[in-house]
């Protein structure tokens, strides 16, 4: 069955963004022991409307249309729209307050969109904000722990 909402992996600001991305789920770190042999994997994901994927696939431009403080982080609403695509769409990325301030993110801030082979990297002020997987990569993003 086709899922109603396209799932995309949206991840993390670079460590350079102090405070980082306050996504509700993140990589579960491991020991840095010399003979580390396993690692809990990255598990953060955001679902974005299928319209966002559609618009990005048509060369959409992106702009910040909302900024709100939510539980210690900042919910940044990014709206995308592509010429010839009737419906625009939006999604939310959670950023650290310091990063938002330093990058000067506010309503109206332009977000650059770079297409890569597996999706899109969205950036502000030259710093990557998130990765959104395309239709090819998206089916390979999931995580299930047996036994709950």
């Amino acid at each position, binding site marked *: 069955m086709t899922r109603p909402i396209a799932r995309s992996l949206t991840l993390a600001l670079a460590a350079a963004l102090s405070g980082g991305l306050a996504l509700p*789920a*993140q990589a579960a770190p491991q020991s840095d022991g010399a003979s580390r042999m396993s690692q809990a994997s990255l598990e953060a994901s955001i679902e974005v409307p299928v319209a966002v994927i559609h618009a990005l696939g048509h060369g959409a431009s992106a702009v910040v249309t909302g900024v709100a403080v939510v539980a210690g982080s900042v919910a940044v609403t990014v709206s995308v729209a592509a010429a010839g695509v009737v419906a625009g769409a939006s999604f939310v990325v959670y950023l650290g307050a310091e990063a938002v301030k330093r990058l000067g993110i506010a309503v109206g801030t332009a977000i650059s969109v770079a297409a890569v082979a597996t999706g899109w990297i969205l950036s502000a002020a030259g710093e990557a904000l*998130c990765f959104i997987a395309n239709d090819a990569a998206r089916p390979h993003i999931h995580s299930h722990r047996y*036994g709950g």
Partner: protein
Amino acid sequence: MRPFAHLVLFVFVLALPGTARAGDACKQRDMPPHKVAEAARTALLAARQLDEVDAPVALVARVGTDLSKQGLVYSHAGFAVRDHAHGRWTVVHLLNECGSDRSGLYAQGLVNFFADDLVNQDLRIVWFTPGVADRLADRLRQMPRHSLHHPRYNLIARPGSEDYQNSTAWIVEVMAAALADRGIYDRRGAYAFARGDGFVPDRVHIAYSKRVLGGLFSANIDFTDHSVGTRLSGDYPVVTVRSIFRWLERRGHVREQREWRGGVRQAAMGPA
């Protein structure tokens, strides 16, 4: 398609398979977007390879930790299962959780598998002989039934330890259960079969001074799983990815292997 398919909703989903990951070791860690994009590229490369070979399962190895000082390359591996209930190519593997002394069995997408803050995106895929592959896939699709999983984790678990298990030990035991032409449903029996089939653990040297001064004290490392003699010598028998590859190759369980280093397909398998 469901009726609200095109509603513009924002749904934030925790894909965390259990958020009860308390403890300082479970702090949030950020992954730069370009690294996730790289992982996705590796995932698609792996998926194409897996699609090319008519097999229900393969072993996929990654470089999650720099083990070059131990003379090792691959640090972790998992079984990629075709047409798994969670996705066409789903990696079933054992993961240590948050640096604790616990582990869980996970079924993850290939992007998740390669987006784990790895040293690099090198990979090796090993396909098994058909009979072994069929039995292994059957076993993996039944998970968590007959999983052979033991949740007490030790990074340097003694091979054959019944008190602990790590990711690579689990692979050996599950492989052994699939190799056997009789049902094996206990860890001791599985490891005994592996040994009888020629599996030989690797040896990793961890000097006493390193143990004491090198910060190798953490919840997921327990040296006492090994004998006093072993601890005094500092030469610890462990199950490494390399030892698994050697076993499978030596015993003729490998049908085909492919490897990428630095994004380049290798003509021959390199050091593991």
